[in-house]
């Protein structure tokens, strides 16, 4: 098996758990050097970087709140300072915001926080990643959207709005830079076994898990590794003609009425 991301430097936000964690490990397995980033989960993020190093890879942790411009600049700067380049940006940090709160009852501050992290955070990460990629003459970016970027769901309108917007942002930026060697895509994961889902569903309760799985055509909730495999492929040369696409990884969920 040839390593598909040899000599690449990859940045993963939201890298301390869930899809980000699995993707950090997958990038490393494919030969990439990985900068793992997280806003608050320093311990776990540091441990992930250490584990990658123990397995013979190259990785470090950089703390950053993607909603904070200075943090994002520092994150990209630290990546360049340490490893000299940036080839892959996986902009995956995000928050669900409060659950089961209908639009009229949502607070403005909750709205602002979700938009800041999910949408502005993705914008800021791209902005500074792109500057570096333009200097290098190429790169690839994947932004984490969601099936909530394709359809509505009750009680989390700010999340749904921000994830829809991530697709718009992805398409626009992809068009801006397609002629300059940079591919930009989004992924739309469905239900996935991550802390984000566990905040709403007790996945240790088999009956609760089954209730969700029964609504999914493939009959199971995704593992984060299932999503990471897709991100790796999108970042590889095998996807050389794919840009501005929102790739759904939902076991068929959104194809249903």
């Amino acid at each position, binding site marked *: 098996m040839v390593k598909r991301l040899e000599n690449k430097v990859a940045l993963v936000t939201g890298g301390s758990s869930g899809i980000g964690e699995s993707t950090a490990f997958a990038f490393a397995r494919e030969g990439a050097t990985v900068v793992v980033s997280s806003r608050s989960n320093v311990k776990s993020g540091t441990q992930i970087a250490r584990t990658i190093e123990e397995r013979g890879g190259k990785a470090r942790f950089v703390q950053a709140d993607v909603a904070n411009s200075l943090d994002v600049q520092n994150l990209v700067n630290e990546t360049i300072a340490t490893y000299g380049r940036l080839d892959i940006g996986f902009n995956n940090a995000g928050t669900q915001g409060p659950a089961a709160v209908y639009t009229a009852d949502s607070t403005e501050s909750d709205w602002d926080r979700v938009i800041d992290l999910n949408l502005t955070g993705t914008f800021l990460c791209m902005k500074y990643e792109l500057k570096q990629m333009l200097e290098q003459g190429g790169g690839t970016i994947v932004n984490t959207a969601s099936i909530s970027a394709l359809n509505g769901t009750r009680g989390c309108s700010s999340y749904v709005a921000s994830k829809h917007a991530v697709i718009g942002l992805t398409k626009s930026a992809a068009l801006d830079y397609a002629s300059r060697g940079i591919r930009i895509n989004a992924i739309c994961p469905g239900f996935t076994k991550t802390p984000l889902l566990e905040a709403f569903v007790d996945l240790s309760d088999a009956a609760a898990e089954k209730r969700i799985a029964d609504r999914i055509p493939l009959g199971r909730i995704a593992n984060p590794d299932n999503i990471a495999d897709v991100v790796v492929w999108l970042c590889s040369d095998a996807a050389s*003609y794919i840009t501005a696409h929102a790739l759904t990884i939902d076991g*068929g969920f959104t194809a249903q009425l």
Partner: protein
Amino acid sequence: MSGRLKSKIAFVTGAGSGIGRSAAIGFAKEGATVIINDLDREGGQETLNDLKKICSSASFYSADVANFSQMENLFEGIIDKHGRIDIGFNNAGVPGITGVLTADYDEEDWHRVVAVNLKGIFLSMKFELKIMLQRKSGVIVNTSSVVGMGGFRGCPAYVATKHGIIGLTRAAAIEYAQSGIRINAVCPGFVRTPLLGLRDDEHESNISRRVPLGRVAEPEEIAEAVMWLCSDEASYVAAHPLLVDGGVLAQI
């Protein structure tokens, strides 16, 4: 990457040229036994010759995908020889007359495009699914198009059928997901194939200008996407129309 599809039996329609030929060759390079179909005997034979350099057991049929009894015979032949199908890449399609707007579009032309592009995929899936259900395992990719998601002037039947393929893919995907069969569509943009019919460099550069990535795709780039959809790396991807269009559709 090689050997991802070792000991798989792959069936490819429209394999006599373009994306179908590239995918057939790609499947073979990944270790699959490849069965190809194309009405174009000459093109099919050329693909078969290429395949035989890679794998010893390739075979070529020349059924009309829109003809039930021809397809029935074809699949009986496959079952007799191989006993199963693991991968179905339903890729046969025709553009129909181009440059003719809807009001002027001939009914006969309409029927032929619908028959090949839409009914052909229905029939291919119907037979593939019956076989795959026996082992509760398999993966299917249907070739739609970027015009399966957006409109295009002067080929209403092509646009309608390619949209229809996405609908058919979604419907079948959710029916059979629980039976171990994943079904997806691929939506290529402008690809260097006979169907695109590039005339000269000027024609190519006119098309390339409309593509954000600034060039037409090579058939191998679409084949990569198809092979990936068929691999275990895409194990949670189902009912998805995967765009491989260099950004064309994302434009207004």
